[in-house]
């Protein structure tokens, strides 16, 4: 198979790193060569963050470039727009609709753009909007928004379900496992589209 590229984009503090680790672990267990590129340091302080996950028979470059991503998981609509160009034509994007205002919007220097989801859909990309925040709140914590999105992502990848559950059990602290698994299941139940092999 050719190398598949996934991007996880969001705002520093939203838990994108945990998501890429879960994904990397699940893919490794299936015998793929995997590379995960993370962002540490300055951009973690509420800035735009991006993580790349690539897998296949042999992966060279750890980064994903414009027009290369098969799948983008966006934790925030503005971030989905920022990284749209990175999506391969025909690629899929899962967008969490929870809006987080960046500082230039907070200070009133610029406006948060309107109808973001509709405009993303108008590009012809396959966009799945998900309002993960209320789902996470109902299960028990706003902190598990990322795992709801991992579930939705798992729904569009052809990996056995128990691999994901195992990867979650190995990655999150023991007392939060049950809550995280619930969040995963809730996300998994959302209909997304399968990345083609």
């Amino acid at each position, binding site marked *: 198979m050719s190398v598949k590229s996934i991007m996880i984009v969001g705002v520093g503090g939203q838990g994108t790193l945990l998501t890429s680790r879960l994904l990397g672990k699940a893919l490794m267990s299936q015998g793929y060569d995997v590379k995960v590129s993370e962002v540490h340091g300055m951009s973690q302080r509420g800035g735009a963050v991006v993580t790349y996950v690539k897998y296949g028979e042999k992966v060279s*470059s750890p980064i994903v470039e414009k027009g290369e991503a098969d799948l983008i998981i966006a934790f925030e609509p503005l971030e989905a727009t920022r990284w749209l160009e990175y999506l391969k034509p025909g690629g899929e994007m899962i967008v969490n609709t929870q809006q987080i205002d960046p500082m230039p919007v907070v200070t009133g220097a610029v406006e948060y753009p309107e109808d973001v989801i509709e405009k993303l859909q108008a590009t012809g990309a396959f966009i799945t909007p998900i309002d993960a925040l209320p789902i996470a709140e109902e299960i028990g914590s706003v902190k598990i928004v990322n795992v709801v999105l991992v579930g939705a992502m798992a729904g569009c990848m052809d990996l056995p379900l128990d691999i994901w559950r195992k990867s979650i059990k190995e990655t999150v602290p023991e007392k939060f496992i049950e809550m995280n698994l619930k969040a995963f299941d809730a996300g998994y139940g959302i209909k997304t589209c399968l990345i083609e092999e």
Partner: protein
Amino acid sequence: MKELILGNEAVARALYEAGCRVLSSYPGTPSTEISEYAAKYDEIYCEWAPNEKVALEVAGGAAIAGARAFSAMKHVGLNVAADPLFTLSYTGTNAGLVIAVADDPGMHSSQNEQDSRHYARASKTIMLEPADSAECLAYTKLAFDLSEEFDTPVLLRLTTRVSHSRSPVELSQRQEIDLRQYEKDPGKYVMMPAMAKRRHEIVEKRLEEQRAWAEKCDINTVEYNSKKIGIISSGTTYMYAKEALGDKASYLKLGCVYPLPVDLIKSFASQCEEVFVIEELDDFIESHCLKHGVEVKGKALFSFLGEYSQSLISEKILGEKADTLKTDLEVPGRPPVLCPGCPHRALFYSLKRLKVFVSGDIGCYTLAALAPLSMMDTCICMGASVSALHGRNKANPENAKKSVAVIGDSTFIHSGITGLIDIAYNKSDSVVIILDNSITGMTGHQDNPTTGKTIKGQPAQTVDLEKLVKSVGIERVSVIDPNDLKNSLKVIKEELEKPGPGVIISRRPCALLKYVKHAPPLKVDRGKCTACRMCMRIGCPTISFKQGKAFIDATQCVGCGVCQQLCNFDAIN
């Protein structure tokens, strides 16, 4: 069993496997995790040193004493550690000494984009450059062997993409290495002119031997595919080239970037129709090729600035560009911000009220340079806030009434204290504010000599900042809680008016520290809010405007109460 680990984690694993006994480092993105992961191994003595110079001297001392030793730092950290590096190259090391230096092309988290390979040539030290996590492990182990074979420190050059990418690594067991015997040898270890002259001869001879090694070592590899295009590269850029060009090109991958081979490059180039050198930052390999008469293309096509990628290489060499999707949406930037509850926010707001010149430094608080606080005038390097303020005030004594320096606790210990001694000694009329948030923040919460804990979480001696400042000759030292706006403003104003030097310690722990208890989130009373936007002047990411009134995001607010003090209408509770 293979594990998916960071390049930095793989370097740490190699320290364990190679029998390294002593590690001393100072945190710096993207190198920090190496020391944090190494600290998890009981077999390795690990420490955070006050700065990189101290760290490398500790590691050098340990190596001369016979233990395999290591130090990690970011590129600018090597500037600080350059002094011991250049002379450790002369003395040699006895047991293996490896120095990891992490460059940051693209400046994800740095103040400049310097290319550390120049240090290898300048200090006449061998330098290896891994391209993924498996190579991080293999090259670090090889570096210890080379260090002992050639009796030299060995530099391991990393870049952000190698340090912070995960790829599969095969782990193995630790090899216990006995302490080497130390033998008194002033001719080798005491660098005075007479001895150093003899050692310099040895260094030049050693370099010739290393050059011969570089011609045939198995980390400089050749892969012939189509010979129309020949690529000479190293590290992560090799990976980009490989992905962009696949078997449309042949490759010379240089695992050793200093000293560089000559014959190997000539023979590779002679096999290929057109040869490109692809290297981020400076034309280090390209100039070497040109110097030896090998015709190559490099910086004529590729930039000296920023990171490269597979698509850039594909575009420059093959003329191919990927199709992309577009919208007409204007996407506002999302710069990093001070966290909700960050103690720096209030302090910089007080400085904004006083309209002072702020001589800044390196840390989370550098973010106060951005809008809406916009309260930093200069930021050069670690410690420069203090000494540069002194220079400013000597240049024009009028400046002293309207200027302050700001420096974090860890940065102050790193190299702010020497500047403060200059201020005390040379009768400076300067006000220095130490932002003591009880942790090294920006690099992700490392302990330091002011926090009372070691890298392994053990209790440690704590530097008493008040006593330290007094003991160097600063007579006026005050302590404020930055979140008490009224008092902070009063104290800073008074200090600026008084003659002679003064230090203000602005003390409140980082809001992200686990032991910091948060108050319940605050709420805006829409009936009382007059939409005056006073609360928005502090740039708190939890406060926005919704339906014409201020709104506080309860999922992010930690109830620090700073915005409450700004509201004249009692609308925040």
